[in-house]
């Protein structure tokens, strides 16, 4: 993503990061699935952000910059190849583009949280970026280094998988499979 890395006038960096902390923690949790590790990641992210000499001034670029710091910190402790291989695998999984229907009554903060834990890392991450981080499809694509269409398909599959996990056996396919419409 093209980020305008410009010098930010001196001000309390904590004040600038604070609005994003909850979203960063949600994203960190989606990556690690471990609350203690997620806390450490956010702390680590804040520390790196505080010590940065150049900080994006634009709000959207600043958010993406923070999330990237956190993601890099996470990947530093991971086997990058394994993560990328998992992401690639998720894009060609067997889920179709059928419309799935879940039971609304089963959707709650708790079931979503538990359901997210059962998703693949790539599915968790794309939901976290769009729904928790507030990224647009385009920004998420830039962030992940994939085309917008990949974000669109990955996200729709991720939500389908999440609904399936939440609803377990109660999820059922609609009687008529959707036809792909041309845009």
């Amino acid at each position, binding site marked *: 993503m093209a980020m305008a890395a410009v010098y930010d006038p001196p001000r309390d960096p904590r004040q600038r990061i604070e609005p994003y902390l909850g979203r960063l923690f949600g994203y960190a949790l989606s990556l690690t699935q471990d609350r203690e590790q997620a806390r450490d990641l956010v702390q680590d992210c804040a520390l790196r952000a505080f010590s940065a000499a150049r900080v994006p001034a634009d709000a959207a670029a600043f958010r993406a910059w923070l999330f990237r710091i956190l993601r890099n910190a996470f990947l530093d402790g991971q086997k990058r190849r394994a993560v990328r291989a998992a992401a690639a695998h998720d894009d060609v999984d067997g889920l179709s583009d059928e419309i799935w*229907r879940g039971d609304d009554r089963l959707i709650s903060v708790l079931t979503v949280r538990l359901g997210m834990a059962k998703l693949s890392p790539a599915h968790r991450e794309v939901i976290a970026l769009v729904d928790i981080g507030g990224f647009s499809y385009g920004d998420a694509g830039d962030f992940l280094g994939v085309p917008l269409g990949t974000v669109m398909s990955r996200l729709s599959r991720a939500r389908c998988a999440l609904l399936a996990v939440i609803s377990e056996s109660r999820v059922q396919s609609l009687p008529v499979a959707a036809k792909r419409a041309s845009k």
Partner: protein
Amino acid sequence: MSTTRPSWQQLNAYVDGELSASDAAAVARALADDKILAEVVATLSRLKATTQEGIEPFALAPKRPRTRPWRRAAIAASVAAVLIVAAVATLAPWMGPTEPPAWLAGAWQVHDTWAQTEMASPPASVDSGVVLATLHRFGPQTYLPDLSDARLTLSHLDIATMADMGGDALHIGYLGNRGCQVSLVLLPGGGGLSADLVRYDRGAGRGYAWRNGKRGYLLLAEGMDEARLALLAETLHRATLELRPFDPDTRTALRESRERSVPCLS
């Protein structure tokens, strides 16, 4: 978009506000004509809203209060308690702050230079090739303690020339993920130290020094939780005498000490 039924992907994009105005209008028309599609969109909207609802508030670790007298007194009391326990447990002789050796200022300068450089650039792990090259130059018997149980990562290794030292020293830098920076300096000539663990203070900085045979050791950190640093010093003092990996109890103590400690982040 054609008048055919919207796809699952398009319904998701509709909920996310990612469709163009014309495509969004087409989906809205389809929803008006299809009750099941409308229910699906409602489900997706609820799923998205619930995911956002689950965002938890998060607060960074508090800044380290360095200037409050009552806090210093509390820290001093806790450090004293830790030191008494550690001394009884290990029977290690303990000495309080004493007259610093002449080379100590040079060691602090090495620590300060590294710490400022690390803060100015993203932390990086030490390449194994650098480790081997440094050890080859400094000596095969060099002890590089693994402090990962204390959540401190080896991030820097170099040969440092210190004023009043009369020779090169090995400087090992460890980084925590809450802002802590710890230096371990190995002094090949022993640095005139004794086998006892001795503490040297420099403002908010704490130095612990000891000697084992012909090698001296110096542990330096600034603004670090005092009880945590004291435990690290005790642990390293013992480990450099025994030259063995930390036992399970020690590893647990290091982890718990880190959990209890005030972050260095400020």
